[in-house]
């Protein structure tokens, strides 16, 4: 007969090892995103309809939509948007082109590097809107000064992003190009430029949002047309529905430009 007292206790049934490998990997859901957005608008509409929110200070989404439709029907909205887009694209095109070119020169050639970085560092921290009065003196109160402010404001971040992108191109690829006897021009066009493209594009994204800020600021200081002018004059007249309609347009504008650059990025950078 076995003496159970001296036997080791029977092994407990195996239990699974506790899982603790869960990490912070938030799942994304388009539906949840849309729900949050529409839910917020619904809450706002509900609060307005119940009279909890004063229609003068914060008009309901329905009134904002009405204002948008009204301005669209009269053609006023389109005029403002076209005026803003023309300034934005004019300034952005100048700032972007110049910024990429100067950034490449700084990134590629030692001669430009020290001088370029010193100048860029001095100008980079200036809030460019501070230069608008000067630009008004130089280029007049019309389009010139606004385009110049946007061009100037988008130029510097583009320069910084571009030479940073050139600096970040894997040096071992450049060494490979040399080892295979590629010409300097071929190394620039076939290795450095494509290699710096991702960094340049992310710089252009940042520059585009800076461009929109400067656009609105410049239009608030001196313009009759444009989304910034619309928002400012609507505020002065207590037309908060039109004011918010303008703000909604700015959100749409920002999203559209961001989506546009994102689409270009996706096309050019399939290899990533």
């Amino acid at each position, binding site marked *: 007969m076995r003496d159970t007292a001296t036997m080791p206790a029977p092994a407990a049934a195996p239990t699974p090892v506790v899982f603790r490998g869960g990490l912070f990997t938030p799942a994304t859901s388009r539906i949840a995103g849309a729900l949050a957005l529409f839910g917020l608008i619904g809450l706002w509409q509900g609060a307005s309809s119940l009279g909890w929110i004063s229609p003068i200070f914060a008009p309901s989404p329905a009134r904002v939509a009405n204002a948008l439709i009204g301005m669209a029907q009269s053609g006023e909205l389109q005029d403002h948007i076209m005026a803003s887009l023309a300034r934005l694209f004019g300034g952005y095109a100048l700032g972007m082109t110049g910024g990429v070119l100067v950034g490449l020169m700084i990134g590629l050639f030692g001669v430009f590097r020290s001088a370029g970085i010193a100048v860029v560092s001095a100008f980079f921290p200036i809030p460019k809107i501070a230069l608008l009065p000067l630009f008004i003196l130089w280029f007049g109160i019309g389009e010139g000064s606004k385009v110049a402010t946007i061009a100037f404001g988008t130029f510097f971040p583009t320069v910084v992003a571009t030479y940073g992108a050139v600096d970040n191109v894997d040096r071992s690829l450049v060494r490979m190009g*040399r080892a*295979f*006897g590629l010409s300097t021009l071929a190394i620039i066009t*076939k290795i450095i430029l494509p290699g710096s493209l991702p960094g340049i594009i992310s710089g252009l994204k940042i520059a585009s949002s800076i461009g929109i800020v400067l656009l609105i600021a410049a239009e608030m200081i001196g313009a009759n047309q444009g989304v910034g002018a619309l928002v400012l004059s609507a505020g002065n007249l207590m037309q908060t529905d039109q004011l918010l309609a303008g703000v909604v347009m700015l959100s749409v504008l920002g999203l559209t430009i961001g989506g546009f650059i994102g689409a270009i990025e996706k096309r050019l950078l399939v*290899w990533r």
Partner: protein
Amino acid sequence: MRLIADRIHHKYGPLPVLEDISFTVEDGEVVAIVGPSGCGKSTLLRILGGLEKPASGGALCAGEAPAGSLNPFTFVFQDFALLPWRTVAQNVRLPLEGHGLPEAEIAARIADTLARTKLTDFADAYPKQLSGGMKQRVGIARALAVKPAILLMDEPLSALDAQTRELLMDDLVHLHEQGNLSSVYVTHNLDEAVRLADKVIVLRRRPGKINAVVELKVPRTARDGTDAEMARQTKELWHLIRADAEAADREILDA
């Protein structure tokens, strides 16, 4: 084509890194350079390939490069150095561009080297889609496409896992049996050296100078990992390197 290292001396600042290195890579010969880390073997390879200037002495070449050679001294890099935005075929194409070759010849060279490196089915893949072994095959294909006289391989298998290394080593052995290709093969892996080389140059460190030259007589294709002669030679090489490797391991780095 022969490559001659002629009394190469090199310094980084006051620190001598290479001292009086002379040897010859004969036509069709594979020379392995082994040594502990810090012995200057990669520097030596860069000097041989014209990427770095020695303090004195230099690399000489004698004889004709093969017909159609675009780059007689061609590197294969440890980190592959592939352009991530180009497909496999486009990466192999890179060194063929700008020489005025007819398009048909470029296409033929790409097809031929992809076939020799078993990459034909991967011609349109991007590097990020490939395993390390496949990436290095692209590196080798790119090097072969320019019809090199001498391949300069800098730790080509060191970034790969052990099994992939074995497979690529078979390919390299095969490649050197196929054609009259000379190579300088820098490695810290003695097995690789004993497997591939006709001659192993053992460097010692600080400064790097030639400690011994070991000739391997067994034909490349007859060697395999279980061969007693190979084991003996690996042991002999280890014996030559061990003290230096220990010193390298125990060194405090100034940084």
